């Protein structure tokens, strides 16, 4: 038996948005994503806790579940695990039933269902700080007596907020042999029987919860009046959508205005580095690799880090405040009209960061048809990898002019591009609805969490994670692809007497010329056509690829980090607009396709994604290119 099997296994179970992941992070030192809305965790996460007396405990964070009768794939994971139905995993030695102290009426029902399984349970009374601020005083000892279970108070978002829980686990989980397999299967069978019986006890549970709340003097818990007052404005049928639109609009303005000084500083740093390398190293292959491949390629992607961080800072603040589920509520009717479920909002929102977590988050959608349509359209949301492409082209071709009320034109164009992605997703969903018939009506049932003042700690951790992800991406796959592209763009050397730039005689130059036949009708030159190929690996690579290709075609080392002025000279406005239109609908990066294959159990949907997105992108780019040319000709 290995060490893993001997360590006690503890699972965090509770309703969505009760703070399980925040507790998990506190217990294990992990940095899993947390947010103030339901459905953030869709996969089980594992970590290790070392208690004060040195015991090691395996801790699992499970997706939120309202009951032990799963309705969605993520709830299924939790129920299968708790009931011991997973073939490769034993049942937990103890379940930590996490409950929100501000909403015991709903959360205690799951505790009662868990209690019937006959497992060892400890109740973590979470968010006690928030409850106290709202005048809700829960007597943990009395609750423990009523439930017949140990109860500990926790605050998942405060350092040291899990001390009582850790002390409990320390005391109850001295190292001991794991239960024999026969025990686990017997327990699982018993659990299944308990679940069957549970169907008849829903009303009984509710009655029992009311009895407990009465005994604790909590039968009349005051609602959060501040949240209610805010919601009267934010969810107003007219003011609500307006506030949402203005919020998003201002975010895109800030992305351009606030990021500029930081981007200029990074550009200057890269240019200085390129100059330094050119001075220190003699002209040759190594100097060309560092200047044209590494600095001009990977460096030109790194420049966009400030913009990505500003966008994510706003998204994290909105997430932590509890505003995002309200946005889902506001958009529910619109999404329903195009055949999307209201529950599609969170997966689609996650896709603004990256389509991969968005596709995973679609597990929270109970209806299979809705889930697959959401997976199909999630990549049309503008992921952060597209942001460098958009801002490069906008910076190069859209003047930094201020419109009325201090609104910048560049921010407006960025907003329009994001809006175009959303519109495209809704159109595709509508077409799917027409092709596959209208789905049954699935009304949105989503908990509206209490508004929180966003935590600076959460914001800092979230931004650090984004920096880590982005820099790791630039330093690994983007850098690797840039070095390979440099190699393909540098060899073979041009024949004696060649008159054009050396890159035109290279392998990459020939590939680009071949691809240009396909893309010339939509206005793409061979450099763009070539850059689209590594862009399949990750979309922002196209910026680095353009940096490398143009750097090798130019003379001197002045291109590094300054690709915008160069393409502004070389391309027409029609070409730039066509490339922007292409990237609104651009075909997937590979990791998205692989994730879609895994989540749909086959290649049918990923291939459908590639086909429809390529067609949409090609048509959109072609129409944009020819309209712009016609407009320029008429002007």
């Amino acid at each position, binding site marked *: 038996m290995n060490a893993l099997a001997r360590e006690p296994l503890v699972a965090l179970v509770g309703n969505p948005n009760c703070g399980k992941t925040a507790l998990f992070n506190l217990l294990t030192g992990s940095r899993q994503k947390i947010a103030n809305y339901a459905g953030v965790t869709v996969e089980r996460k594992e970590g290790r806790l070392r208690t004060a007396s040195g015991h090691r405990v395996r801790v699992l964070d499970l997706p939120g579940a309202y009951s032990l009768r799963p309705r969605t794939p993520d709830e299924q994971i939790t129920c299968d695990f708790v009931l011991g139905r997973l073939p490769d995993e034993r049942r937990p030695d103890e379940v930590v039933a996490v409950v929100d102290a501000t909403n015991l009426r709903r959360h205690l029902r799951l505790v009662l269902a868990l209690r019937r399984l006959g497992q060892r349970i400890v109740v973590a009374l979470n968010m006690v700080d928030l409850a106290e601020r709202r005048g809700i005083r829960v007597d943990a000892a009395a609750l423990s007596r009523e439930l017949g279970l140990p109860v500990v108070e926790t605050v998942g978002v405060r350092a040291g907020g899990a001390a009582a829980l850790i002390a409990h686990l320390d005391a109850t989980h001295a190292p001991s042999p794991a239960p024999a397999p026969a025990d686990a299967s017997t327990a699982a069978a018993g659990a299944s029987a308990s679940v069957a019986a549970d169907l008849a006890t829903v009303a009984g549970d509710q009655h029992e919860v009311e009895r407990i709340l009465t005994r604790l003097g909590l039968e009349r818990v005051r609602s959060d009046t501040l949240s209610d007052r805010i919601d009267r404005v934010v969810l107003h049928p007219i003011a609500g959508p307006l506030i949402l639109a203005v919020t998003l609009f201002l975010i895109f303005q800030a992305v351009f205005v606030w990021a500029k000084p930081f981007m200029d500083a990074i550009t200057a740093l890269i240019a200085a580095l390129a100059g330094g390398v050119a001075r220190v*190293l003699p002209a040759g*292959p190594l100097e060309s690799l560092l200047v044209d491949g590494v600095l001009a390629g990977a460096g030109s992607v790194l420049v966009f880090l400030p913009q990505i961080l500003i966008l994510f800072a706003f998204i994290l603040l909105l997430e932590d405040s509890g505003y995002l589920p309200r946005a889902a509520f506001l958009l529910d009717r619109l999404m329903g009209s195009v055949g999307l479920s209201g529950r599609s909002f969170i997966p689609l929102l996650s896709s603004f960061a990256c389509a991969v977590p968005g596709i995973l988050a679609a597990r929270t959608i109970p209806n299979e048809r809705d889930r697959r349509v959401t997976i199909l359209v999630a990549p049309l949301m503008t992921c952060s990898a597209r942001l460098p492409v958009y801002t490069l082209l906008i910076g190069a071709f859209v003047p930094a002019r201020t419109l009325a009320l201090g609104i910048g034109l560049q921010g407006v164009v960025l907003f329009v591009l994001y809006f175009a992605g959303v519109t495209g997703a809704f159109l595709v969903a509508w077409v799917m609805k027409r092709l596959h018939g209208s789905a049954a009506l699935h009304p949105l049932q989503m908990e509206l969490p209490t508004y929180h003042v966003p935590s600076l700690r959460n914001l800092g951790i979230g931004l650090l994670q984004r920096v880590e992800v982005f820099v790791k991406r630039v330093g690994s796959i983007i850098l690797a692809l840039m070095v*390979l592209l440099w190699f393909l763009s540098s060899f073979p050397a041009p024949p004696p007497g060649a008159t054009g730039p050396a890159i035109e005689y290279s392998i990459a130059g020939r590939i680009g010329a071949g691809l240009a036949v396909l893309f010339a009708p939509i206005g793409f030159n061979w450099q763009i056509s070539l850059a689209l190929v590594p862009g399949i690996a990750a979309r922002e690579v196209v910026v680095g690829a353009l940096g490398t290709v143009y750097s090798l075609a130019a003379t001197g080392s002045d291109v590094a980090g300054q690709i915008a002025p160069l393409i502004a000279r070389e391309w027409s406005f029609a070409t730039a607009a066509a490339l922007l239109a292409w990237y609104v609908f651009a075909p997937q990066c590979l990791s998205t396709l692989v994730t879609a294959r895994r989540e749909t159990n086959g290649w049918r949907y990923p291939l459908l994604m590639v086909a429809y997105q390529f067609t949409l992108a090609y048509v959109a780019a072609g129409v944009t290119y020819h309209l712009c040319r016609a407009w320029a000709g008429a002007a």
Partner: protein
Amino acid sequence: MTAWLQWLVVGAAVLASALVAFRTLAPFGWRVALARRATGRLPDRFRIWLAGQSACDACGGRDLPRLRRP
């Protein structure tokens, strides 16, 4: 820096980049197959890196013996 040393560094960088690109972009099955084939020829740590951490995450470390056998 002499010319041959420059070419050596450039060659190593291109080779390392090709490995990183393969490791990141190649399908999971290809990576694991290659890692298994390299049993005995390449260090275990390198083969596990090549297969991808997900190969280990997916099996909780239990698949390492299989990874060692071709």
